[in-house]
């Protein structure tokens, strides 16, 4: 395990699930219910990932966790990047649905990023101050960036409004 991974694991025990070093980028997979603790720790000393560049998501319908949320971090001191990722869980009937703790309380910039992930993938962020759709209209049905959302051929929802 890398130095960063070891530091995180020793501070928040049981949080690191997996570590992947690929094409020169370090990815650390975090247990879903520990992400907020890890976020709080990682922003402060000694790791000091002060800048949260991006929060985004990718849909893997074939994976039991389905929605993979990725956090891209940047350290101003060392200039190094780190990717945290979390499996949000599938969207099943009767299940809790994909849900992750919001990190807005740690990095204010996560506000719009998480709204976008919610809008596009339907991943809910627990304790988000303002989890509304951001790019799609407020009354839009469905989450366009899911893999099972069709591209082309579907009826346009606002056809009768023009």
């Amino acid at each position, binding site marked *: 395990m890398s130095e960063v991974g070891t530091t995180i694991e020793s501070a928040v025990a049981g949080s690191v699930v997996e570590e992947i070093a690929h094409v020169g980028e370090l990815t650390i997979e975090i247990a879903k219910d520990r992400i907020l603790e890890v976020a709080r720790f990682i922003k402060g000393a000694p790791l000091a990932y002060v*800048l949260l560049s991006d929060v985004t998501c990718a849909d893997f319908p074939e994976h039991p966790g389905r929605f993979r949320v990725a956090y891209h971090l940047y350290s101003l001191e060392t200039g190094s990047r780190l990717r945290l990722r979390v499996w949000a869980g599938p969207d099943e009937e009767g299940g809790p649905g994909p849900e992750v703790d919001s990190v807005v309380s740690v990095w204010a*910039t996560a506000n719009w990023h998480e709204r976008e992930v919610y809008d596009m993938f339907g991943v809910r962020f627990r304790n988000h101050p*303002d989890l509304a759709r951001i790019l799609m*209209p407020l*009354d839009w049905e469905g989450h366009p*960036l899911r893999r099972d959302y069709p*591209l082309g051929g579907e009826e346009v929802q606002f056809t009768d*409004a023009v």
Partner: protein
Amino acid sequence: MSTETGGGIPAAEEAREALEAARREGRELTETERAIAGAEAMTPQEALAGIEAAVEQTPGSRQPMIINIGPQHPSTHGVLRLVTELDGEIIRDLHPVIGYLHTGIEKQCENKTYWQAITLVTRMDYLASYFNIHAYTMSVEKLLGLEVPDRAQYLRVIMCELNRITSHLVWLGTSGLELGAMTVMFYTYREREKALDLGEMIAGERMNTRFFQVGGCADDMPPGFEQRLREFIDEMPGRIDEYEGLLTENPIWIDRTRGVGALPAEQLLDLGVTGPALRAAGVDLDLRKTAPYSGYEHFDFQVPLGVNGDAYDRYTVRLREMRESVRIIGQALDGMPEGGHIADDRKVVLPPRGELSTSMEALIHHFKLVTEGFRVPEGEAYSAVESPRGELGCYVVADGSPKPRRVHMRDPSFVNLQALRPMARGNYLADLITMIGSLDNVMGGVDR
């Protein structure tokens, strides 16, 4: 729902349906939903009646008036809508409503091959198209493990810095226009035309080009390009002096911009703001220096910083950045390495056109690449470039097929726009125009 069927205006319908959807889900409306619903549910008469009733109930109380600015408004640089709560001329609160320019580019990329997606991503931030492709191709090249030749990297640097100048010129011209300094636009667009002509010369298109390819650039510099580019960079410093002569010591410009829209550096970082808006507050974060890519470590240039972080500092930072860009282009032309303008990997890069009529193998490669595309091994990559507005990152997830599983752009306009709310609260409505201008958001990048 058209007005003819008695459904009211479509936007109000949307707010009502959102309210119903929230009720069905058994939750409260969020802050933004409430603001939009509030702005749309009322006619001006209803709003006025509400205010009068509240004043009657508690005499002397001040009720905010909700005013919609945009989505079509000349000073919002595109289709940005701001729901503002005004107390006289003071902004009590503000909710940016975005998405009017959402074109689903990220979704469409998933249904295109890797080389086709370049044409889409270039149209996100339409004033900085080279930066969009640069971030995207860097991510794909990283996943492929493809080396980009030095000459291609220098060509990329030249085009990106030229693009930075054209982008800043649009910002300077339009910002001046918004604050009543109309003359500046005629000056900046004069030079922008020349820069765009240079782009047309090398890439065949003036704006949304696809000059950068996976593996390098589409072509080498055409004959005569270097000379015209040198003439341009020789002329440019004098032209920047002219813009400065119009604005830097102009008392009206100073009054309108100094002290406007300043936020502490820590708060800007917390909000994820990057680029000139952050550097104007004195934070030395420029990815070309802190995380050099595409050979930027070979160039000698300064990172202009500001002190107060207000709109005036952002203006000076951007002007100095243009001067540095001119220097970088000059150094890139002087030190232009020999070699190919694109990598020589026939499994990824199209063979030279001339070979198609003589080489069977080249023809097969060409056919395979155009019809099926190239496969990218499974993995994920995030590459960021320093665009005119800040960190422009591209996150690509590959699943081994010729089409990306996910393409996501971290667009600086989108992130920086979040800072508008804390900036504007408690300030004058007139200053809001300065703040939007000084953040330099491009709505194509915000909405993607």
